[in-house]
């Protein structure tokens, strides 16, 4: 029996409050995100440097993607963009693989009830710590320690210990610098990934492991047959967030240099956008290229994002469909029994 008050409340439409509550988000989002995105889109159709006020259509896209455009150096611009794209991929791949392997290994170890590990809490806290440090400071830290000559800590120590005879070019070396950035990125993120994976593993029904134990499965079998398959959704999530994070990799590659300019060998797409956009006056900057590169990245992100989105949505939808079917079946069964009254 509904009370009078309840009836009255049911009669009121609360929809307007819904709109009111979500309005701030949409207003701010449109103003600070959507419009700038459109603005970027517009910039991508305009010229660079002295042509900055000119509408150039798809010139910027054809320049950075195909190497054909108005500028004499169109091919060079294409080369640079693809080099940046390549660097982004290499740096991302080179930090994601060790990071996920290390994190997975640690997560399995930390959640293994059979392993007696003193100071587990301490280890977790320390391993997560790099993740909270300002990336700019991390870059500064590594630059100050890993300088290319015997005037810096690491090279000086290595040489004193007799491990190397000449200083290693950790910053300028084309391969060494990339390895360093991969190392720093892994250093920054493995703790985070580890804890996420741990929570994923702990979310797996423990009775599965107990049953496997009873059946005599060893820990390797348990890992490959139970942990890994059940961890798949969270792994996909980690993969996609890391991929999108990788596309934005900026702070470390940009700041990891010694001397006046950023390290060209570490130029990622984010650095490419920043560099072309931030060249001082509008006469010397390349807003068009920066805009076009941004849009290309946007499209790549959109594709990556929608892949996960569809994966998640499908799962939900399928689950709902199943539930609905089940409910229908039950309903029909009950109807057949004739025991259901409305």
């Amino acid at each position: 029996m509904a009370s009078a008050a309840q009836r009255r409340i049911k009669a009121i439409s609360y929809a307007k409050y819904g709109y009111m509550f979500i309005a701030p988000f949409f207003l701010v989002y449109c103003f600070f995100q959507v419009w700038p995105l459109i603005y970027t889109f517009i910039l991508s159709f305009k010229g660079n440097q002295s042509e900055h006020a000119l509408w150039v259509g798809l010139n910027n896209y054809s320049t950075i993607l195909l190497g054909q455009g108005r500028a004499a150096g169109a091919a060079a611009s294409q080369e640079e963009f693809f080099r940046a794209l390549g660097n982004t991929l290499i740096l991302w791949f080179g930090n994601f693989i060790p990071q996920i392997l290390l994190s997975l290994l640690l997560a399995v170890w930390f959640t293994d009830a059979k392993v007696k590990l003193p100071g587990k809490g301490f280890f977790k806290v320390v391993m997560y710590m790099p993740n909270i440090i300002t990336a700019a400071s991390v870059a500064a830290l590594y630059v100050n320690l890993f300088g290319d000559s015997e005037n810096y800590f690491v090279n000086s120590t290595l040489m004193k210990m007799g491990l190397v005879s000449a200083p290693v070019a950790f910053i300028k070396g084309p391969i060494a610098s990339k390895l360093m950035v991969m190392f720093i990125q892994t250093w920054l993120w493995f703790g985070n990934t580890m804890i996420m994976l741990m929570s994923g593993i702990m979310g797996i029904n423990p009775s599965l492991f107990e049953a496997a134990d009873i059946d005599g499965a060893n820990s390797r079998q348990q890992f490959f047959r139970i942990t890994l398959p059940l961890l798949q959704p969270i792994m996909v999530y980690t993969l996609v967030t890391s991929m999108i994070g990788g596309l934005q990799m900026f702070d470390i590659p940009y700041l990891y240099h010694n001397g006046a300019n950023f390290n060209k060998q570490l130029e990622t797409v984010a650095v490419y956008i920043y560099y072309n956009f931030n060249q001082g006056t509008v006469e010397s900057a390349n807003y068009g290229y920066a805009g076009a590169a941004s849009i290309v990245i946007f499209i790549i992100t959109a594709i990556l994002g929608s892949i996960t989105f569809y994966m998640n949505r499908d799962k939900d939808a399928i689950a709902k469909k199943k539930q609905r079917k089940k409910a229908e079946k039950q309903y029909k069964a009950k109807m057949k029994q004739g025991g259901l009254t409305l």
Partner: protein
Amino acid sequence: MSKLTRTLALVATLAMASSALVACGGNTESSTAPAASTAESTAESAAESVEESAAESSEAPAPASDLTNDDATLTVVCWTDADLANMFDVYKDQGLLSDGVTLNYQNCGGNGGEAATQYATYLNSGDDVDLFVAEAGWILNYINDDSFSAPLSDLGITEADYGDAYKYTVEIGTDNNGVLKAASWQAAAGGYAYNADLAKEYLGVEDTDAMQAKVADWSKFEATAKELKDASNGEVKIAATIGGLWQAFSTAKNAPWVEGTTIKTDVAKEFTDMVKGYVDNGYVDPSIEQWTADWTNAGLNGKALGYFYSTWCLGEGAQLEQNGGNAGNWRIINGPQTFFWGGSWLCLSPNCNTKLEAQKFTKAFTADKATMKAYALYSGDFANNKAAMDEIVAEGSNSNALLGGQDQFAVLSDVAANIKMSDSISKYDQSLKDTFLTALKDNIKEDSDTIIDKFTTDALAANPDLSK
């Protein structure tokens, strides 16, 4: 004093002429801005400005004294205020700072290259800016855009004030339309500073003349480099960095980076060929970057016989001292080629609201002989005033303790007089120079054609305006 009055009189006439010119030119932006700020000032700080202009007019009865300080802070935008601190000290010591006015430095970026890219945002942000400092490599970006810079005639300063200045500084400070927009306080003559103890030990050189003879041209320089390497078992390099060599090599050629819209690589190619030989033979360490701790330590640890320095490196507290100036026994000579290095200019912002002080400050350090002489003696920097510098050299009043009492101005004065860079600089210079040196150092093991190719690729990618 008579010189001062003469100059001021000239300023006055030219100020009137130029304000008429501005009005005719229909440059609405620059002609309305001062009017607006004057209107503001009458309401806000009428009392103060009256006081200021009264004080000024007592010593300089000229129309330029219409200028007022609408704001009690003279903001100079720069990158590291430590560079300008010498001027600030002299300004105060000479009692030039008006009562109630404070000098404020606004640092933008950590070095000159960064400043080039960050200024635009700051200067258009509406935050306080009266004057800003720009380097030769990128000044043209800013003085050729009226939204960033205003004619110095707004301060009553004109070309006539710069009769004693080194000509190239005035030419560079003039924009494409022939309007004077920037003035420099220094003539950036360069020299080769070497560690005399090391020179004596390895080369048996006793004095500066002998040393100059050993490095009088590039082939002698290279021969000496070899001698030094053999004598020191490769421990000591003749020059600290590739960057320093480039500075000496390139500016002496006075060849433009850009002709029309074409990138010129002749000098770069020539240098690449030369420096690759140096690197292969171990005469220079390619891994050392200018302006880093390695650069400093090369001098401190006796790994470098010498540095190519500009005048602003030679004073107390500057690079020479930082790079082991106190530890060694240094001397300066002209080196294989007379060269010059950069230099900075003071530019006027259209948003300047402390015009009186801006005028006093700019004039003091770019046009006033007495202040500039005091500045040169205090800072060790080569002031942009021939008369002042000739006087110092003639008097023999300068003795640089870091150079064993040598007078660097005597060594550099001929160099300063011969600096030619106005016809060769472009707004792309900083970017092209950085790109070239990066390509060179990153690919030093490749052959020189490949290096030049890599450089042009990077340069073209960054500058769609240019072509090969």
